[in-house]
């Protein structure tokens, strides 16, 4: 943009007068665009023939924005159609931008109204956690919330089906009973998990690593291990049964299988055999509720091999003439051998090192911890808990305190009465004090005041259409924005004092909240959906092509991105670091996958990546690179589309009707693929989008479909260079990233991020009257080093976040809105 300034200054003189300019622009479109974009051809699903009069600039604003965007990016008109003079193009886009600005200045900013927001799955889980002090994820099995604009917290999309309501009623009861009487007692059951066979490559042939001395001694990152992500329902003991498979060379020392939970070794075993098929080892241990990574590995797998393997600590065992599948031949074996000849399996010549795991069986829960947590009980029983010795007078304070926290505001005594009535009912039925409290609490959690965030209408001050939201409502807006959960005591205290809106208090609260571990919710729920890396949990890369991929690596990929973004959020980094950074977070598993030396152990740590090929930023992270690929191969189209949609705020439109989506051929034909796609781009119908998408995707071809670095695809050397429609070009992924951080791409990124975060914060789609707020927040950020906290503060202090449109004005606005459609 900057380098165009001198020319702009010249043409600006000609385009300041609105009427003259507008006629030129209209004529420009009719001359250069309508040959393809008319009611019969409708390329890109666009008919521009209708753009004949000056009033269309306002009425068809979105269409005009698209026109300006395409012309500015140099995408339109596409070759071979002759291009208009550069100066004319610039004058046209400049005039249009000025016109949009003018319109935006005319738009009266409005606060808008957010419809009552139902707690979505994540918010419900977190709120129950913070309200009751139990982390049981009661909403885990609820049907997925409907998303809109890519987020699942948009109130208008959060429907409530009767089936879902029933889920809420059940979850409320389960949560209350868990906190008052301890976790639900589960019957032990068994689960069988088959290990993916990932070592086909080494099966049947002794393909050992090149360096037998420098390898992962824990075995966690070798192909001989098996990993399972498993969700444990309750704190309890569980039994584990590991079934082994594969072989060790004859004369090897015993193997040492081991079992790890979350990268920490639980138990080591010793098995002395060459044929490991069907060997079983078992253990039993306590596990906390929640998701854990279970790993079966072989410790020091390349130690103790026969001396001929030239590995570390070679076996001292003398060569044996003949051993059976289970070790040394017994008298009985020899007898059998005599009888059946050589049909019995003998492993005298066994040379394979393909020991692996067949499966894992999990049994349990046993000895389940089934008592209520004293901390949680203290939260509920505000006048102290003495089982069997409660006085009836305590019921009311207990219910009142709970309802206030659950409703995130002070409750009236009429409201409390209604809930105390349930307590009384249960007591009359002969139930205990605790059962009575359980019923009252259950009723509180079913109430719409808990399940929805309902904001009251307040009269707007004279001369304004909006009123500030209440102090408690503001506290909830903040906490559900930054924590996806209820406000904590400190926020509620500030609300009750009426000081929360004071700039200094608000800023201090926001900064405190961002530092709090609960701000991780922004990583999971905002970034996870914005950048779609949540999908890493469900993708299934083809194991034959990518045998190195397993749940251990999957988890490591997810953790890297989570830690990276959490670092930006909680350490107040710049949002530009997401595009490019000189650091990332890895553990041994991921470091080995990335080829970063010198990292051992399962813990993640920050590493400098400035001198690596991969570089940093999310475009160098395996999670993002995997979710934007197919299971068998990369797709430059998919990755390009991903960048346009999520980073450059320019989602490509659907392909024009009748044209099948451009698809590449099989992997290993990259050179042809490129040519094929270049051919394809010659078609004007395809080129406008693909000339933008494809080069971006090709620029990331150094990363394979699970994000590993490569320099060739199949037999072909990779060509990762490309040029963008505006003429800028790059040779490496690093250069591509540098381009994204620069000029109008950077502006588009900041604006897109601002829009998405504002939408997420408000729980509604953005309207035209929100544009001034977005523009102001985005513009200010560049002078604030793009700090994440400043972006959040910009949003928190914005009109739509602070205020709510009053009822009557909103009705007028909505009827006007309908008329203008």
């Amino acid at each position: 943009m900057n380098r165009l300034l001198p020319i702009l200054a010249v043409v600006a003189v000609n385009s300041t007068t609105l009427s003259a300019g507008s006629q030129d622009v209209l004529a420009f479109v009719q001359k250069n665009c309508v040959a393809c974009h008319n009611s019969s051809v409708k390329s890109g699903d666009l008919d521009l023939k209708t753009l004949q009069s000056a009033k269309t600039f306002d009425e068809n604003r979105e269409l005009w924005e698209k026109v300006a965007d395409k012309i500015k990016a140099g995408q339109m008109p596409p070759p071979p159609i002759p291009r208009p003079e550069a100066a004319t193009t610039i004058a046209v886009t400049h005039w249009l931008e000025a016109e949009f600005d003018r319109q935006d200045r005319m738009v009266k900013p409005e606060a808008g109204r957010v419809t009552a927001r139902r707690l979505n799955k994540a918010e419900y889980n977190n709120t129950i956690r913070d309200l009751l002090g139990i982390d049981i994820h009661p909403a885990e099995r609820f049907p997925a919330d409907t998303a809109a604009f890519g987020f699942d917290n948009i109130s208008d999309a959060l429907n409530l089906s009767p089936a879902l309501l029933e889920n809420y009623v059940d979850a409320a009861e389960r949560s209350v009973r868990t906190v008052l009487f301890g976790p639900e007692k589960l019957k032990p059951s068994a689960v069988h998990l088959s290990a993916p066979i990932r070592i086909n490559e080494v099966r049947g042939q002794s393909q050992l690593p090149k360096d037998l001395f420098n390898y992962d001694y824990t075995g966690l990152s070798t192909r001989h291990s098996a990993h399972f992500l498993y969700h444990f329902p309750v704190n309890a003991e569980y039994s584990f049964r590991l079934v082994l498979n594969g072989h060790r060379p004859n004369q090897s020392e015993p193997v040492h299988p081991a079992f790890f939970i979350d990268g920490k070794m639980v138990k080591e075993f010793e098995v002395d055999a060459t044929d490991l098929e069907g060997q079983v080892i078992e253990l039993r241990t306590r596990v906390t509720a929640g998701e854990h990574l279970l790993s079966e590995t072989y410790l020091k797998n390349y130690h103790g091999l026969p001396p001929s393997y030239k590995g570390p600590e070679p076996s001292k065992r003398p060569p044996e003439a003949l051993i059976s599948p289970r070790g040394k031949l017994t008298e009985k074996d020899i007898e059998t051998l005599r009888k059946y000849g050589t049909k019995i399996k003998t492993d005298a010549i066994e040379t394979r090192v393909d020991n692996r795991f067949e499966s894992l069986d999990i049994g349990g829960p046993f000895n389940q911890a089934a008592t209520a947590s004293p901390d949680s009980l203290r939260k509920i029983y505000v006048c102290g808990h003495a089982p069997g010795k409660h006085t009836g007078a305590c019921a009311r304070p207990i219910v009142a305190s709970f309802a206030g926290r659950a409703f995130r505001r002070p409750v009236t005594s009429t409201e409390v009465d209604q809930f105390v009535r349930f307590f009384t009912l249960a007591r009359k039925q002969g139930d205990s004090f605790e059962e009575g409290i359980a019923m009252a609490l259950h009723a509180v959690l079913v109430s719409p005041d808990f399940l929805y965030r309902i904001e009251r209408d307040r009269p707007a001050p004279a001369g304004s259409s909006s009123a500030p939201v209440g102090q408690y409502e503001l506290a909830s807006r903040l906490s559900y924005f930054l924590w996806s959960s209820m406000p904590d005591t400190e926020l509620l205290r500030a609300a009750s004092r009426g000081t929360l809106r004071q700039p200094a208090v608000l800023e201090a609260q926001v900064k405190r909240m961002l530092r709090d571990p609960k701000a991780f919710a922004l990583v999971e729920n905002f970034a996870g959906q914005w950048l779609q890396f949540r999908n890493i949990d469900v993708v299934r890369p083809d194991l034959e092509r990518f045998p190195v991929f397993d749940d251990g690596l999957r988890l490591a990929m997810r953790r890297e991105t989570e830690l990276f973004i959490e670092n930006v959020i909680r350490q107040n980094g710049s949002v530009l670091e997401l595009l490019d950074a000189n650091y990332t977070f890895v553990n041994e598993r991921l470091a080995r996958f990335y080829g970063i030396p010198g990292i051992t152990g399962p813990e993640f740590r920050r590493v400098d990546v400035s001198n690596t090929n991969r570089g940093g930023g999310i475009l160098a992270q395996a999670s993002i690179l995997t979710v934007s690929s197919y299971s068998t191969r990369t797709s430059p189209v998919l990755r390009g589309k991903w960048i346009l949609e999520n980073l450059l705020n320019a989602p490509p439109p659907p392909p024009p009707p009748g044209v099948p989506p451009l698809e590449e051929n099989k992997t290993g034909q990259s050179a042809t693929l490129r040519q094929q796609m270049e051919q394809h781009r010659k078609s004007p119908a395809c080129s406008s989008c693909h000339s933008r998408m494809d080069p971006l995707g090709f620029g990331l071809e150094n990363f394979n479909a699970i994000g590993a670095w490569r320099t060739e695809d199949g037999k072909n050397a990779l060509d990762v260079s490309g040029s963008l429609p505006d003429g800028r070009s790059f040779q490496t992924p690093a250069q591509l990233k540098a381009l994204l951080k620069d000029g109008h791409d950077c502006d588009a990124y900041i604006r897109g991020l601002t829009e998405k975060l504002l939408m997420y914060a408000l729980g509604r789609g953005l309207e035209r009257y929100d544009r001034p707020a977005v523009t102001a927040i985005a513009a200010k950020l560049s002078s604030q080093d793009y700090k994440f906290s400043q972006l959040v503060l910009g949003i928190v202090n914005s009109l739509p976040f602070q205020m709510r449109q009053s009822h009557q004005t909103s009705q007028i606005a909505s009827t006007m809105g309908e008329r203008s459609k």
Partner: protein
Amino acid sequence: MFLTGKHLDRRTLLKGVGAAIALPWLDAMRPAMAAPAKLANQARRVAVVYVPNGIVMKDWKPAEVGGEFAFTRILKPLEPFRDDIVVLSGLANNAANKARGGGHAKASGSFLSGTPPKFTAGADVHAGVTFDQLAAKHWGAETRVPSLQLGCEDSRMVGNCDTGSSCAYTNSLSWKDPDTPLPVEVNPRSVFERLFGTVDPSLPAGVRARRAMYRKSILDQTAENTQRLTAGLGPADRRKMDEYLTGIREVEVRIASAEKDPVTPPAEKPSGIPFDYAEYVKLMFNLQAIAFQSDLTRVSTIMLGREGSVRTYPEIGVPDPHHPLTHHRGHPDFIEKVTKINCFHAELFAWFLERLKSTPDGDGSLLDHSAILYGGALSDGNAHSNVDLPLVLAGHAGGIRGGRHVASASNTPVSNLFVHLLNSVGLETERFADSTGQLDLRT
């Protein structure tokens, strides 16, 4: 023990034999809630089994029309049910052609409603009420659960589902009304609890009854409070509260009906989603069969995958994701793999038919009294084609005559079939959405 004329408590029987899922359903156990004679010629159950991303049509569509057709490679698994199925061809989803948006979103977003879905990625999704929901409404309070929406694909995928179209169009098949897509249940455990409730059956009967009473009283009071709360709200908020109240009322009805006619679950509660896809699908089919056989519901839709599904099928030698394979551009390797997936789905459907056929129901089998539509809203996935849809109708509900391939004139709206299905459930109508008549399959 006398069995004459009285219905036998299922629990009494189950005590003796253990809780086997495929327990033969003795007619004596049928609760006296439905009179079979009255229903003999009506479709007592309607289900749709949906497969995504189109079908390899050359290996699907039989060459011959009428009774003497040969089973093609993909339809082969259904051959044992020759007399129970009608292969349909020529039907088109014309509504999808009229819509804007991604090819997959348009297809599943309009399939059962015959209405073009609005092109949006936002909250203002809009399509049409689907025919299955009209049937569910028709039966209304006669069953405990008006209808089931099941899915066999994780709905955790986020982002744009199909080039700018809302995920609602690919995540849901059934729409309660033009603005309300019904979410699918993907966890077998949740399906089970929806059918049989969550109350721990091991609790003493007195405690269970008291808990149910408490729950009813909580819901009553909550409904009252909500009405009071609603009075002070603006229109949009009021709509939210209305939706909430409707939910409360439906749950109340369900509890009341469960009290009146308790049904003991005929199987163990599933623990979660099985890892193996075939096992997963069979479990969901089985729950559907259980719901039908206990008359807990009469309407269900199940998606074996969503449109645009990228599920891989390494267990049948297809490690590649489904959707990109279907854009094969004539590549024989790709086509072969898609065909394998098509066959696999058909085999699983055959399992479901077997399950229904081997379950006695009144004067016949469950399959005799059901109308099960199998297929998808796309024919050729490569071209996102909405014409000549791959469809099979199984069962004899309402007197459907099986054993043939019925070819309709090309571009006949698939809504004509839905008119027939609505009539066979007793909802007399001449029209549904963009129908031009009725595809009568009785004669």
